[in-house]
């Protein structure tokens, strides 16, 4: 019987070859909304090194991603908005040249991840044409408009936050806590999900992330 639910965080993180030094990691969430905080904490506890983390932001305050960065596990961030009123930890390491940064327009970031999950190695977008974020990228004209070629992002691990999940791994999200989570769930070799509540079955019409994209889940309760 297919059952992707785990009962403990140690079971969740055990025997997962994709959790390795140098891995690329997708972190769902937007600001503090829909972030898999408990999975990020568990990832930090592994003490990995040289991770490339793909996330909309670069963490704020002293929790979650900010602590992961502070722990020294992260070699590079790929984000759209690596700056907030309290993003001190990332900014200090960035200023000290101790962490790399690739800034990507938010929609291009989402689409690059979607492309990674959808088997599309590259696509063209008008976003960023004529700006510094297109520097060094291929420019091509289609129908008299200029576009930038962008490459897909695929990852080893995705850490996802969802509202409900069933044993098959079908997921729902709540409101704007959906954000990057369903897209990221498709683009990693291993997708780990913290779910607020396990349910017997997500009705077929209500599934947002089909279980095919999910490897393991843990129930974490309401995260606020």
């Amino acid at each position, binding site marked *: 019987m297919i059952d992707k639910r785990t009962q403990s965080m140690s079971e969740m993180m055990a025997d997962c070859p994709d959790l390795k030094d140098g891995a690329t990691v997708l972190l769902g969430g937007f600001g503090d*909304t829909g972030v898999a905080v408990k999975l990020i904490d568990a990832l930090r506890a592994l003490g990995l090194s040289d991770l490339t983390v793909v996330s909309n932001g670069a963490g704020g305050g002293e929790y979650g991603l900010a602590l992961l960065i502070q722990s020294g596990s992260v070699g590079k961030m790929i984000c759209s908005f690596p*700056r907030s009123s309290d993003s001190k930890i990332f900014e200090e390491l960035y200023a000290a040249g101790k962490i790399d940064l690739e800034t990507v*327009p938010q*929609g291009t970031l989402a689409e690059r991840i979607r492309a990674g999950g959808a088997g599309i190695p590259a696509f063209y977008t008008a976003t960023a044409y004529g700006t510094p974020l297109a520097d060094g990228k291929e420019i091509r004209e289609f129908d008299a408009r200029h576009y930038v070629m962008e490459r897909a992002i695929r990852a080893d691990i995705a850490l996802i936050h969802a509202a409900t999940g069933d044993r098959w791994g079908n997921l729902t999200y709540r409101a*704007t806590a*959906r954000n990057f989570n369903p897209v990221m769930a498709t683009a990693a070799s291993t997708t780990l999900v913290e779910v607020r509540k396990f349910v017997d079955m997500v009705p077929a019409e209500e599934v947002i992330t089909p279980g095919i994209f999910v490897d393991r889940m843990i129930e974490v309760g309401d995260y606020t």
Partner: protein
Amino acid sequence: MKLSSVDIARRVASDITGGSYVNLGIGMPMLVSDHIPDDREFILHTENGMLGMGPAALEGAEDWDIVNAGKQAVSILDGGSYFHHADSFAMIRGGHIDISILGAYEVAANGDIANWLIPGPRPPAVGGAMDLVAGAKQVWVMLSSHVSKSGEPKVVERCTLPLTGVGCVNRVYSDLAIIDIVDNGLIVTAMIEGLEREELQTKTGATLNFAPNCEVLKPFSEAA
């Protein structure tokens, strides 16, 4: 005499056709949502995954699963919907958003806009700005003041700061004037009461043309 930011927001709101889909940038553009005229319905898009964005949540009643692009707790109106980040930016990139309203450091007579980066030591953060200016059908810029604090024009011949997008701005609303950007350059369609054309030109870094029936703007408190 000049328009307050609220006056500008009120005017922008009154210029939006009923039924439009509108994305409001973080900061001053958010004021527009407080001044939607009673006689029309238009739908606000927030790029983190919602259509039908409503007013800010009441203090103490925030639902942190319902946030806007500025990570503020907001609400959703009847007829709204949620979707993931790739779908949200497909809406933007695909030309489905009627109007993107943003702030800017500089807007040029050729429609270029610079609103994301003042070069410096902090990490460059772009968010969804490049996607919005490249994708929306119309781009309107709101300037709380026509010139910078040091008196430099914000409407210029060519931008000097790193660009957000090229040839994409259709209209500028400032505390002094409303300026359309067309193929041939800048056309002032409205100007604050009591201002001389020459004075507005002095405060603008590119040649102004004036619409034949250039409207006279009055601060709201002064208006009939």
